[in-house]
């Protein structure tokens, strides 16, 4: 058995012959991916936080909550959406508004609801800009082009159907209320300058 300094590892009883090449790993680590968006405060726009791998949206939500908002004070609401259900526009170069590349005009059809996310600077996270009603994704881009005036160019747009987004319930917002004693996760909780000073004084 493998002997470790870590008592947890010893309890795993890892056989000594692990050196033998492992049989090819089964392809099991590749779940669907979900994009997560976080609202830091009520009224603020949702902002892209990152990706989680999960077998379904409920679990994606569970995972995203701890991966992207475990320092709970910075979160009010969270939503996840399956990556393949997001329409991604081209990424333009700085200076060119991606909306200028969309030809045609909005149908005026309001049969479906879509959430629109913009990137206004390369390197920055996408932010939720609003909800539009349209007949399909292409139409939603055009609706968005008409709806949102832009004083600065938008470089990339993501669009998802509102119904495809799993959003935290308003009544569950308290899952981000944590004990104030959670400060142990933050740098601010570790002050020891006095101790160093006292030590130096003692050393002369």
């Amino acid at each position, binding site marked *: 058995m493998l002997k470790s300094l870590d008592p947890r590892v010893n309890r795993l009883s890892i056989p000594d012959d692990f050196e033998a090449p492992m049989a090819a790993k089964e392809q099991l680590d590749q779940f669907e991916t979900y994009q997560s968006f976080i609202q830091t405060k009520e009224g603020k726009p949702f902002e892209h936080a990152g990706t989680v*791998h999960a077998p379904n949206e409920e679990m994606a939500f569970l*995972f995203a*909550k701890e991966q992207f908002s*475990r320092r709970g004070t910075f979160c009010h609401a969270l939503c996840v959406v399956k990556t393949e259900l997001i329409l991604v526009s081209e990424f333009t170069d700085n200076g060119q508004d991606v909306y200028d590349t969309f030809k045609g005009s909005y149908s005026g059809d309001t049969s479906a609801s879509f959430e629109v996310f913009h990137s206004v600077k390369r390197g920055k996270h996408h932010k939720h800009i609003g909800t539009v009603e349209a007949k399909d994704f292409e139409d939603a881009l055009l609706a968005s082009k008409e709806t949102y005036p832009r004083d600065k160019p938008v470089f990339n747009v993501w669009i998802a159907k509102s119904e495809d987004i799993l959003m935290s319930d308003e009544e569950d917002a*308290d*899952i981000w*209320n944590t*004990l104030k*004693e959670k400060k142990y996760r933050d740098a601010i909780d570790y002050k020891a300058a006095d101790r160093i000073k006292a030590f130096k004084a003692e050393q002369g």
Partner: protein
Amino acid sequence: MNQNAIKDLLYKMADDQLILGHKNSEWTGFGPLLEEDIAFSSMAQDKVGQSWQLYKILNELGESDPDTVAFMRNAEQFHNSQFVELPNGEYDFSLIRHFLFDTAELIRFQMLAESSFETLANLAKKIKGETKYHSMHANIWIKQLGSATEESISRLQDSLDKSMPYALGMFEVSEFEQDLINEGLFAGEEALKAQWKTKVTEVISETSLILPDMESITPVYGGRYGKHTEHLQPLLTEMSEVFNVDPTADW
């Protein structure tokens, strides 16, 4: 307020949260998938954090400071249920224990939010969000794995069968049970157990798992009175290994 009764209640809760949080933290870095590794660690931290708060209340009631209480007692001085001190085993057991324990945890703290002991009621209210997430997490996992593959179902079933006598042991009544109820401090283990059974039955019924007949099971009692399995003392010795290098030192 009956001090002995409230202390007994606080100790058993704090000890449960500490020991299970400690056990669950063992999974950090070894979890079955990255995202779950992170989620499980958060819940372990919540439990240890909650135990700390409970020991602080005990400290206000005249007991030693939390670090001393947690790191210096021997197994027979602990009041946790035996359920929480069992080894982690495979993820199936850890998950079933998480489900059975955290379902009770959620209800217990909901009940305590109404306690006549205001300090405890306030704490219960403050951690509502944490316990809600724990229960949400447990239910989703049990529903998922409890109706997935033949292997996952049979693993969960075995762990459920193995766990049930210990899980029922969580509700061992205190010698002060009647005082707690009479003074409105806590509605009591029997009331908690009844609500717990309903919730557990409800979740299990949505899976392919079969809930063991709780009426015919003899609960494993003793933990609340300091009687433990052979697993607790080594756990405590390990936990306090560094602390005990010099208990008076500031670490």
